[in-house]
């Protein structure tokens, strides 16, 4: 699908929501699909600009080579690290069972 065809289907929105870990409900899917369709129609305007030979800008300010010396800095204590945790056990963050495998 090319950018200017614009239309986004409800199924696509459902797929994107899954990728983004959002358990959206059916009613939201309808609303989002309509709204995103309108928004995509508007933002697809960027495609009108002839910019084949234009370099993209990823950073607003042209800095490079910003480094930190390899020196240790005080971090958080275990207690601080876990202070916001919804659940913790044995100094670790406790999370529900993980279904997928590591990358």
């Amino acid at each position, binding site marked *: *699908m090319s950018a200017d065809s614009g239309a986004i289907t409800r199924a696509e929105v459902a797929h994107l929501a899954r990728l983004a870990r959002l358990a959206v409900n059916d009613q939201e899917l309808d609303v989002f699909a309509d709204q995103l369709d309108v928004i995509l129609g508007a*933002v697809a305007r960027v495609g009108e600009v002839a*910019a084949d030979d*234009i370099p*993209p800008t990823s950073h607003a300010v042209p*800095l490079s080579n910003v480094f930190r010396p390899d020196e240790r800095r005080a971090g958080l204590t275990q207690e601080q690290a876990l202070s916001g945790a919804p659940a913790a056990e044995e100094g670790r963050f406790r999370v529900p069972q993980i279904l997928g495998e590591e990358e």
Partner: protein
Amino acid sequence: MSSDALTGSSMNSELTRLTAAELAQKIHSREVSAVEVTQAHLDRIAAVDDRDEGVHAFLHVDASAALSAAALVDESLDAGTAPASPLAGVPLALKDVLTTSDMPTTVGSKILEGWRPPYDATVTARLRAAGIPILGKTNMDEFAMGSSTEYSAYGVTRNPWDLRRIPGGSGGGSAAALAAFEAPLAIGTDTGGSIRQPAAMTGTVGVKPTYGAVSRFGLVACASSLDQAGPCARTVLDTALLHEVIAGHDPMDSTSIDAPVPDVVEAARRGASGDLRGLRVGVVRELSGEGYQPGVRSTFEAALRQLEALGAELVEVSTPHFRYALAAYYLILPSEVSSNLARFDAMRYGLRVENGATSAEEVMALTREAGFGPEVKRRIILGTYALSSGYYDAYYGQAQKVRTLISRDFAAAFEQADVLVSPTAPTTAFPIGDKVDDPLAMYLNDLATIPTNLAGTTAMSVPSGLAPEDGLPTGLQIMAPALGEAVMYRVAAAYEAARDAEDGGPLIQRVPGLEVSA
């Protein structure tokens, strides 16, 4: 209440009407104490900031922290120590997007309700080091996405000029706190206009510094390549004073510029003398025509005449690619948002919604569904789409090219003019509820402010009078090249002085009294 307290209260209400510079002068000369000044603002907050009927600028007020910070300043001054900064003792309202180790940081979102960060943002640390008591954290659109604060998970902020209207956004809380005299200083963040548009809508001053001028460390990211924290106040000089406190290189932020902070206080003082001869002011016609409310246009034209009267030379500049800025912005921003907000997953901090789910994957999705509001979800989905393989080049990649072209437009315009001007926002403050279900209409608020974020340059909004048709404030946007803050402040101060003279006093003094529950 004792009669002492009543006298105190009346003196207090006078204190809240003063500028930050005036308050600092009185505190440093020991005419009043920092504690008295802080208490006066806490009293004002208590009087006007009711969540259900009042301004509701604050999500969290920490009277004891603010008062003890103020007491430390008093102690130090009483001991004959020089003030830690020109603003030592003058209290401030901090947007709830900057981390504070002693107060919650929610970013206006349910997903971070009650989260207490274990660290201070660099901006927060600099405020503390400058002896500036932090009154509390201000309301905002969730994750700084919005132009009205209606997308806050904790209720809307109301515009002190008319409580039925929005104060702008996302930094509506900070701007409203200033306009309601709840704080003389505030910090905002600006990703596409979140400092400037609320400033315009509340008759206050707000500056988006050059990208990299103020550290983003501890600023909960909306869109990393666009976000920038900046100073807000009721006068140009106060804004400049605060600017110098928070700006400057920070090794904790890789995108922080390692260069001296422009002398913006001197520039503001110099500008107030009112002479702009030899200065070229570029008028961006692309940002002042169609879609702009009549009163916005007429106050803008009046501002141009004033600038001319101050000796500035007006030149027309062309920025042909600005018309694509909004589209590029609403691809780049959601893309970065979709990635930045992935960390809110119920594993390490913040909300966890289980609802019977047993897997981490389900808990993540349920929590994010429950914890994010509709606008945030919309943008996450949009950004996920724009970065998807197959769409990247057409959307995100192309938007980045447009970004380059917008920077080039700015560069060309700054060849012809020292600063550029436009109205800050296309309309004055709109009624609460008007655009909340129409995302695209909401996005149009940022038409004039977005190009600056895309280019990483600096811009500010100064009050430019009241629109005749609704009596609500409008703002003049002044834009300057990267690190060109000094000339921008100079023009702003000159314009402010001229307009105040013509109006017979600062516009902000005409804001309604708001004695909601006093």
